């Protein structure tokens, strides 16, 4: 393989260095590297990060290839600076067997844009009744470590307890979509003053918080680790903070959209803002940012949820829930966390690469930018300002809440094991 010299990039936002990639690994990090045989990437003023890792991506294949495929989803991931994504299990058929997770894993390998680590369903068909063959999924070629019924909550306390206990055998983690089903029947948006005015069914914060409270207690009881998907309320933050103060093995993620958008946007009845968990209040947004900054929330996860145009071009109640997020995640994190001074670029590396890779037990990702490490890298131009135009997305879907918004930062290059998947902002 050829050599690549990234010249003058600020590593994790710190000092400018040259980084020489040879084949699949970082060969040298130094000042003034000369390499006549290398392709040079001039990166003065740019930030070099470990390749981003997403714990929560919906690639839709198999079953909903009209929304996204593993190929289009991984292309979108690469554009967003990701070198690895975890593919959620709510496909058709559900990824609840070794066969399906291996299919997704192989499609990811064939795509070549981004590593795809399948997430296995906790229960058969996501129905919450019978444990899926967690061991078989772990033992398969896909090597599943993260299990989730995401899209649905494992609401049966006994099933949740058993799952938490069972995955200890292979250091797995259960990622919970915390949503108490009875409290959210008919729910359309955050329950509050806005839902009352708009006449839309409320999704109360307590429906999330009560499940999180139960599950951190369960995880502590059985001595397992639990991961909380897409935290969205200030109360959820407090529960996770308390659980961590006890020394329990609890981790949590937050989506970019929950760091920026509020339920006030639902006043437009535009289904592009319909998402689960719903957009909450300004107070929740601020609490989530603070929690991501202080480490209560471990990482950012996109919950990239592509939907075809017709599933959003309709009335609110009929619309699908979810937003695409891979291609805008880093920009939203820069705007909400970096440009506000809450975290620096090293913090971004930690929350968008290091921690998600650790939680997913993903070898080769989230590593330091230093000699001998796999060359999974992301180069960002933080000074860039651009207006989001979904027409240019690599994703097959366009359901972004940021259309027409100006967001900072742009991924200029993404390297997957030394091979450029994105060059100058475009797919290689």
């Amino acid at each position, binding site marked *: 393989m050829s050599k690549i010299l990234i010249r003058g990039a600020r590593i994790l936002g710190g000092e400018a260095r040259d980084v020489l990639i040879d084949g699949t690994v970082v060969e040298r990090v130094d000042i003034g590297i000369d390499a006549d045989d290398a392709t040079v990437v001039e990166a003065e003023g740019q930030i070099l990060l470990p390749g981003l890792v997403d714990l929560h991506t919906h690639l839709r294949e198999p079953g909903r290839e009209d929304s996204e495929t593993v190929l289009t989803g991984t292309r979108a991931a690469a554009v967003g600076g990701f070198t690895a994504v975890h593919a959620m299990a709510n496909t058709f058929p559900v990824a609840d067997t070794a066969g399906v997770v291996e299919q997704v894993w192989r499609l990811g390998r064939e795509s070549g844009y981004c590593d795809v680590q399948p997430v296995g369903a906790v229960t058969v068909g996501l129905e919450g009744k019978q444990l899926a063959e967690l061991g078989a999924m772990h033992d398969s070629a896909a090597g599943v470590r993260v299990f989730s019924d995401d899209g649905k909550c494992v609401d049966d306390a006994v099933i949740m307890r058993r799952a938490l206990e069972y995955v200890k055998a292979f250091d797995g983690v259960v990622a919970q979509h915390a949503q108490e089903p009875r409290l959210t029947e008919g729910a*359309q948006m955050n*329950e*509050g*003053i*806005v*839902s*009352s*005015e*708009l*006449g*839309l069914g*409320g999704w*109360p914060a307590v429906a999330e918080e009560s499940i999180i409270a139960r599950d951190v207690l369960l995880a502590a009881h059985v001595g397992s680790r639990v991961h909380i998907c897409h935290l969205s309320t200030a109360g959820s933050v407090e529960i996770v903070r308390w659980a961590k103060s006890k020394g329990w093995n609890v981790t949590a993620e937050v989506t970019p959209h929950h760091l920026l958008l509020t339920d*006030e946007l639902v*006043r*437009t*009845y*535009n289904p592009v803002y319909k998402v689960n968990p719903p957009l909450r209040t300004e107070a929740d947004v601020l609490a989530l940012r603070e929690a991501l900054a202080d480490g209560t929330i471990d990482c950012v996860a996109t919950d990239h949820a592509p939907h075809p145009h*017709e599933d959003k*071009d*309709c*009335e*609110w*109640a*009929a619309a699908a829930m979810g937003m695409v997020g891979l291609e805008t995640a880093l920009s939203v994190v820069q705007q909400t966390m970096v440009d506000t001074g809450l975290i620096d670029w090293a913090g971004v590396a930690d929350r968008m690469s290091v921690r998600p890779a650790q939680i997913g037990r993903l070898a080769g990702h989230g590593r330091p930018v230093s000699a001998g490490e796999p060359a999974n890298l992301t180069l960002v131009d933080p000074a860039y300002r651009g207006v989001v135009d979904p027409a240019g997305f690599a994703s097959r879907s366009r359901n972004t809440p940021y259309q027409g918004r100006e967001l900072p930062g742009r991924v200029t290059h993404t390297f997957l094991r030394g091979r450029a998947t994105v060059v100058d902002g475009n797919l290689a």
Partner: protein
Amino acid sequence: MLRLPGASPRTPGHLISAADLTRDDAVLILDTAEEMARVADRPIKKLPTLRGRTVVNLFFEDSTRTRISFEAAAKRLSADVINFSAKGSSVSKGESLKDTALTLEAMGADAVVIRHGSSGAPYRLANSGWIDGAVINAGDGTHEHPTQALLDAFTMRRRLVGADEGIGRDLEGRRITIVGDILHSRVARSNVLLLHTLGAEVTLVAPPTLLPIGVEKWPCEVSYDLDRVLPKSDAVMMLRVQRERMNAAFFPTEREYSRRYGLDGERMARMPDNSIVMHPGPMNRGMEITAEVADSDRCTAVEQVANGVSTRMAVLYLLLGGAVFNTTTVPAVTHSRPASATEENE
């Protein structure tokens, strides 16, 4: 213009929410409705005003009185009326709201009166670029029902102020009590907004389970005690309470609900003289209202139906005459096609 805290953006050329109406807009509609009501007293109850215009009644939910009311209103203004109900239509075969709207647009609908089970559907119809015609919300989910609020206000003004004396006036200082399932009631939402705009003092009475989260921020008072509020009420609006709410544990039994929040003769006797009892219908006799009250002279339920036609005539007339609520200088009723928006009142 009144807004609930952060109310939705205005929707000119349409009537989607009671929040779209300023005090002057609302009084203009009520005054126009008075003129329309006089048409009903004539031997020939028809004006040529909307001849050649097409009004579509687009009803995705079962409704008898509202649909008939809009149909009568449009026909009395000589509009061509197309009734579309979802039952037995292509909607039941999976056609979307957007596809239906595009079909109506191709047919040249000047106004679409929409009733839909999903809150916000009229707003989407008016703001998605699917159609060019005026959109009138005839009830969407648990969101709003602005023409019901207008006809209720019209009924109150007639009864509490007087048909002729009320012209040009609002409901300043009138004390209105709305009782029942506020949580699921689009009628209550629209009424709170409109009555506040018109200067009335509104009190909501319901068990806490049937009040929306955040209701304390609405421009009204809230009480759990009907008996304390009745003596200070110029009008008491009883809302229909669906029996299935009991099964969802909003209240323990029908009997308990009736005892605590139902209006019977004994309670009505505690209301001030000349006060009225209202009901948007259909009534659950024996649940929220006894037959004795429903059939009394104080109860305006039947009048409300008649007033609904006049009020909806006014709304259709003004909107199809080019009114953009909140920025209006609107024509008075003429007996020809709508005048331009700058013409003086007669």
